[in-house]
């Protein structure tokens, strides 16, 4: 069901005008909170899952905008946000699949999902590292990859909505700002994920013993990275599909020409990609001479840095996660230095599985308690059941009598 269901039903059934406001508010909230949760995770698969919450939030912002536009007389910007949202569904499918494949390879090679136990894997798994980096760039919405194109379209639509100065501008304005913040948080999240898994020194033994997975695991990632790059460099390629989907949702929006200069963007992205490749190659070939010296990380003269001295996943996320402490509910353990010969001091900070532990588990436990209590009524004794029926009938009779009294 999910996004497809919402799209199908909102395109097919009559939708109350308030629905757009609700959907766009839900989308903006889920984009911000989803990425805040993702940033705070230490388990990389959970991080990717929360990041999907963010991306669905972005899609919902687009869809909510489209609903608002439709209820305000088919405004042209609605077509833009809807097209952006549809394209983002597709893009998200490509880069998130790529990232999950990468995560799967890492899990297969090391046997752990905790980023604070990994590190330095690029050396052992260069293909996975490189392809994961492409996925990270795409999911952070950076040019010249595909994530940027769809977010760009949604932004443009929202900006147009603000410009149109209809009441819907009051939804578009905060949505655009929150999308910007969610984008910056996504950048932080994936800088963290990539760095903790693949960069620096290996933190524990499993990370030292990892091996690159076989071609059958890298090839799908290569294909997906290719899709990310192709859609980024030439977004016009999928425009007919997106346009016909938007037309199916709202017939008046079916048009051939894109309302935004997708072709210009495509050329700019191609130019950017070419320049990036050229500059990277030139600088590397200037540096990678026989003179290139390797040494331990300088780090302001640390004599013997160890892998445990590296910045950890929790500390990287610390600053931004602290802004969301009210919902992340981090668990802190602090044992201060005491006495003249202190034994040990500990400061641990861990973000628990907040949604699961604080919302879903207690709720499920409550439901179970109530159900168990109610279940006691059902014991299989016929005489008691007849008593229930008689009691029920008596109650109904009393009700009817009270109603019919003048």
């Amino acid at each position, binding site marked *: 069901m999910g996004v497809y269901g919402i799209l199908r039903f909102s395109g097919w059934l009559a939708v109350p005008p308030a629905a757009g406001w609700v959907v766009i508010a839900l989308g903006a909230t889920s984009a911000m909170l989803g990425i805040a949760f993702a940033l705070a995770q230490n388990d990389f698969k959970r991080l990717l899952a929360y990041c999907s919450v963010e991306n669905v939030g972005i899609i919902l912002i687009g869809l909510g905008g489209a609903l608002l536009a439709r209820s305000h007389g088919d405004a042209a910007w609605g077509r833009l946000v809807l097209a952006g949202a549809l394209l983002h569904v597709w893009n998200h499918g490509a880069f998130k699949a790529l990232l999950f494949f990468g995560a799967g390879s890492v899990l297969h090679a090391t046997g752990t999902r905790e980023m604070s136990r990994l590190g330095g894997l690029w050396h052992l798994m260069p293909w996975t590292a490189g392809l994961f980096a492409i996925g990270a760039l795409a999911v952070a919405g950076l040019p010249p990859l595909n994530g940027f194109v769809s977010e760009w379209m949604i932004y443009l639509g929202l900006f147009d909505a603000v410009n149109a100065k209809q009441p819907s501008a009051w939804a578009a304005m905060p949505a655009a700002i929150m999308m910007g913040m969610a984008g910056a948080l996504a950048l932080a999240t994936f800088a963290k994920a990539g760095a903790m898994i693949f960069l620096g020194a290996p933190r524990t033994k499993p990370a030292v013993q990892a091996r690159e997975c076989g071609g059958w695991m890298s090839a799908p990632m290569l294909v997906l990275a290719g899709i990310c790059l192709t859609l980024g460099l030439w977004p016009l390629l999928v425009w007919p599909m997106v346009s016909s989907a938007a037309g199916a949702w709202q017939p008046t929006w079916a048009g051939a020409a894109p309302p935004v200069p997708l072709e210009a963007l495509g050329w700019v992205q191609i130019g950017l990609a070419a320049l990036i490749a050229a500059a990277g190659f030139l600088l590397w070939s200037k540096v990678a001479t026989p003179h290139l010296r390797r040494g331990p990380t300088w780090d302001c003269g640390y004599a013997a840095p160890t892998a445990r001295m590296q*910045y950890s996943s929790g500390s990287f996320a610390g600053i931004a996660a602290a802004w969301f402490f009210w919902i992340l509910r981090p668990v802190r353990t602090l044992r201060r230095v005491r006495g003249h010969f202190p034994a040990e001091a500990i400061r641990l900070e861990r973000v628990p599985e907040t949604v699961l532990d604080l919302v879903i588990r207690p709720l499920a436990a409550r439901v179970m308690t109530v159900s168990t209590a109610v279940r006691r009524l059902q014991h299989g004794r016929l005489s008691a059941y007849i008593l229930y029926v008689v009691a029920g009938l008596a109650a109904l009779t009393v009700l009817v009598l009270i109603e019919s009294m003048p």
Partner: protein
Amino acid sequence: MIPILEFLLRLACWLVVAPLLPGIINRVKSMVAGRRGPPVLQLYYDLARLWRKDVVMSNLASPMFVILPAVAWVALAGATLLVPLGPAGASLSFRGDVLLFIYLLALARFCTAWAAMETGSAFEGMGSAREVSYAVLAEAAMIAAVLSLCVQTGSMLLVTMLVPTVGASAVLLAAGLFIVLLAENCRVPFDDPNTHLELTMIHEVMVLDHSGPPLAVILHGASVKLLLFAVVLTQAVVPVGNFGSLVACVLLVACVLMVTVGIGLVESLLARFAFRRVPLLLTVAFLLCLFALLVAWKGGEA
């Protein structure tokens, strides 16, 4: 032929002028402190010297440690092509280029942070974490500023957006964007480029392990970013595009110079803030830009 020549000439102009700005800031700082200070052209000498040097790379770092600074530099140099220069317009202009501009800066940030993490150093981890975290608030302020310009001019093109009307909105925007400029370019009171304590740095600590040509590329990119912000700030507040080319040129140079001297004065008169106060200041910048947006909105209705 002529358009290509103009294109290249403009790009060269941006890239050549940029290292002048840190020199001017340092000169202002030394004048306020009563010192002689380094020459204004110091960064040019530094860049030339670094470019000739060899590189020492960490054992842990991948080739990306060298390639990503180049990517960041391309992103910043590409962003210069989008920024209009008064009545002369921009080299590249299409609807929505303003978002490309913001995301090119984000690309540069991602590359610098990633390259810093390559070394596995705790200091560099600290710098990256700070850079990407504070950018969240700076990004919110920037989007609000763009929205305000967008409401004022009803356009999504940088060329037409950067011809604002003079008024209360411009003053608020100037203050907000100036704070964002200080934060994004890691100047006092967010970061102290001259500090000697790695624990308190943002940008400088991210590039601790870089040396030789990659460091030159990073330093040059940082100066280009400073010039970019100074030019955009100027044009977001002063309607340079409405004047003739000669007046506009003089006005632009004067305003950029004023911004640069302003940065120097701020650095001389203020101390770096404690890191826990940085988000507060950035929130103030965001609110200023948001109020500019609301004022622009009301101005449009009246």
